[in-house]
């Protein structure tokens, strides 16, 4: 942003404000021109070439970033969009032929009876995960604000779920949540809370709750870390002043912590939503979308279409739908973070 602003000010003015290219587009820039060239008699061509070179260098500095973005973000996105309009099969890889089918893939995906189930599951999974992660993360962050022995060690232990590969976490949780010999049911059984095994992962009504629970466990460290950082930023003086006016405990949280933390909260929530929408490995590892599609989300369905049924076009179409949903939240994030900077 600041770079482009500088560029505009360095644009070669023609000496006559309001006549040159730059001036014509934006009259305001004449101000810069009149400062640079008070009399208009300096050797303009040489200066122009120097400025052109300067501009070239500025562009050259941008090239690595642009190349990287185009190669690793632009190309896959464009390719995926194109693929979603093609009949892209295994044969395409060998022959390179992918007939154009227009919106057929989108129609097939959206009219499938599974789509509404996946959409609802995606929404429930995302809302449930974010709520749980955020509330527990915030509670822990506030808890760790206090000074007590082992604070640092405990806080770093809480990061553990974040450090484990997701495949490992889901394998362990799959074992913990097993109906017959899972650790959780054994534990509940020993406490006489339940007498028969609870089918955490094999009941259509419980599986989504179990998967959300595991995802909350995985997401807590992220929320804790960012919110804890945000809390550290709040100056102690505010609390001191507040306590003189009688704002302690809940009141202090309501009137000091929460308003001060708002910018961080919006960032955490929006990033959380984008991360959660695309969750794949945890669900595949725990239930594979089952039982009877009760944990099937748009992400897992898209994966299944592409890599199990080899319907790459339909998989791409569904993937794009997910990208669009994520994009809505990404835009919200950009707006929220810009406001945070402005504030």
């Amino acid at each position, binding site marked *: *942003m600041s770079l*482009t*602003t500088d*560029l*505009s000010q360095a644009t070669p003015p023609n000496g006559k404000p309001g006549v040159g290219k730059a001036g014509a*587009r*934006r009259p305001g820039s004449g101000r810069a021109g009149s400062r640079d060239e008070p009399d208009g008699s300096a050797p303009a061509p040489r200066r122009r070439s120097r400025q052109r070179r300067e501009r070239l260098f500025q*562009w050259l500095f941008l*090239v690595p970033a*642009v*190349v990287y*973005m*185009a*190669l690793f973000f*632009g*190309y896959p996105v*464009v390719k995926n969009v194109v693929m979603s309009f093609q009949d892209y*099969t*295994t*044969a*395409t*890889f*060998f*022959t*390179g032929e992918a007939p154009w089918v227009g919106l057929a893939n989108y129609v097939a995906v959206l009219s*499938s*009876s*599974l789509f509404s189930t996946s959409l609802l599951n995606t929404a429930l999974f995302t809302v449930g995960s974010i709520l749980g992660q955020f509330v527990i993360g915030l509670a822990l962050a506030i808890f760790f604000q206090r000074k007590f022995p082992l604070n640092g060690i405990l806080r770093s232990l809480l990061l553990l779920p974040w450090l484990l590969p997701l495949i490992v976490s889901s394998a362990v949780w*799959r074992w913990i949540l*097993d*109906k*017959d*010999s899972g650790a959780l049911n054994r534990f509940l059984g020993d406490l006489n809370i339940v007498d028969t095994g609870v*089918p955490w*992962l*094999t*009941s*259509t009504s419980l599986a989504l709750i179990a998967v959300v629970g595991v995802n909350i466990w995985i997401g807590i460290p992220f929320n804790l870390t960012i919110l804890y950082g945000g809390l550290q930023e709040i100056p102690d003086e505010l609390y001191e002043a507040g306590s003189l006016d009688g704002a302690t405990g809940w009141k202090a949280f309501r009137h000091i912590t929460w308003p001060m933390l708002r910018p961080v909260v919006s960032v955490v929530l929006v990033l959380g939503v984008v991360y959660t929408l695309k969750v794949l490995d945890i669900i595949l590892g725990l*239930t*594979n*979308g*089952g*039982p*009877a*599609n*009760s944990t099937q989300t748009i992400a897992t369905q898209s994966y*299944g279409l592409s*890599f*199990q*049924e*080899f*319907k790459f076009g339909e998989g791409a179409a569904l993937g794009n739908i997910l990208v669009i949903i994520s994009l809505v939240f990404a835009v919200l994030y950009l707006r929220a973070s810009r406001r945070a900077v402005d504030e």
Partner: protein
Amino acid sequence: MKSALRNSRPLAVAVTALVGLPILLSGCGTAASSSSTEPVSEISVMDYYNNEPDKTFIGDALTACGTKAGVTIKRETVPGKSLISKVLQQSSSKTLPDVLMLDNPDLQQIAATGALAPLADFDMSTADFAPGVLSAGTYKDKVYGLAPTVNTIALFYNKDILAKAGVTPPATWDELEAAAAKLTSGDQYGLAFNANPTYEGTWQFLPVMWSNGGNEKNIDTEETAQALQLWTDLVKDGSVSSSALNWTQADVKDQFLAGKAAMMVNGPWQIPSLDKQASLQYGVVKIPVREAGQTVVAPLGGEVWTVPQTGNKARQAKAAEVVSCLNSDENQLAMAKVRNTIPSKTTLAAKFAEENPKLATFTELVKTARARTGQLGEEWPAQATKIYTAIQTALTGKASPSEALKQAQGQ
């Protein structure tokens, strides 16, 4: 912000140009096909036997066959799950290996792309192979892949538990249900199978579906509904844990090993782990049929070896020699013995069963076993998805078996 907009046109041009660049580059990736006159000294092989002991068994066989053909083998093993994506990637960049192993239900999918060479081009004999094995390797009347050894699934039972309960191994569905119910007590289930929402769940259901006359082309039939009713009843009775909805075949084996399941549906590749537990006495019988007299039709498992279209005739010829050697009688017998699989030539069956009594049931089953892709070819993945969806719907009680099958077929 305004100034950024002002400069956005050159930026847009640059981005467009750079997005186009990789597309151009990817077009240049065609491998230079070397002339086929120079002698071939090395051929590349790709397979998914990345775990011991199979890795060594297959590696040794490949090396021996390479020596016989006068070439050295450059072998790459990839994890099973990433094999197909790797093959697709290689077929788009024209860097397929000279010899490629594929899981048999994937063969038609890959053959349909045109990436494989028909084995008849190399005068390879397909005589004596079991019909199921050949149909797994065939796409549009041409054989593209041959499996030296194959496998299938059967019913394993814990001899001690059955003897204690006075139960004999079941042969019909009624006997199976009665036995499973009788063998269920405490935290021990009568039977374990896997009905998870993957192709594995479909694979374990096929023996009951096929033996009863069910057909994968249309699953909305009386025969298939009866088979699904059996699976559903077993779970509903509590003779099979509802965890079956999420188990893998390895989990099923663990339940059986731990004595938590008196019987299980599984394949011969589990035999090494079962044998490790010396206290476990187990037997193997065919998966029960609805009425005595019905023939058991089990699904055929195993990997086929293929010769991809690499464009180099000399290398392809050498590759075919290696594939042919892997499928020779001696290699079939040797590999089957060490890997607990079954030779795919029916002429070897009698001798093999005699020498390996533990695999006798499986050897018998392979003779009538069917390939999953035999009828549907490349349409199989879509239909297999429907089958496991119906199984899951029925087993969770969301619909009756016949209703679940109807819904799935209509999808």
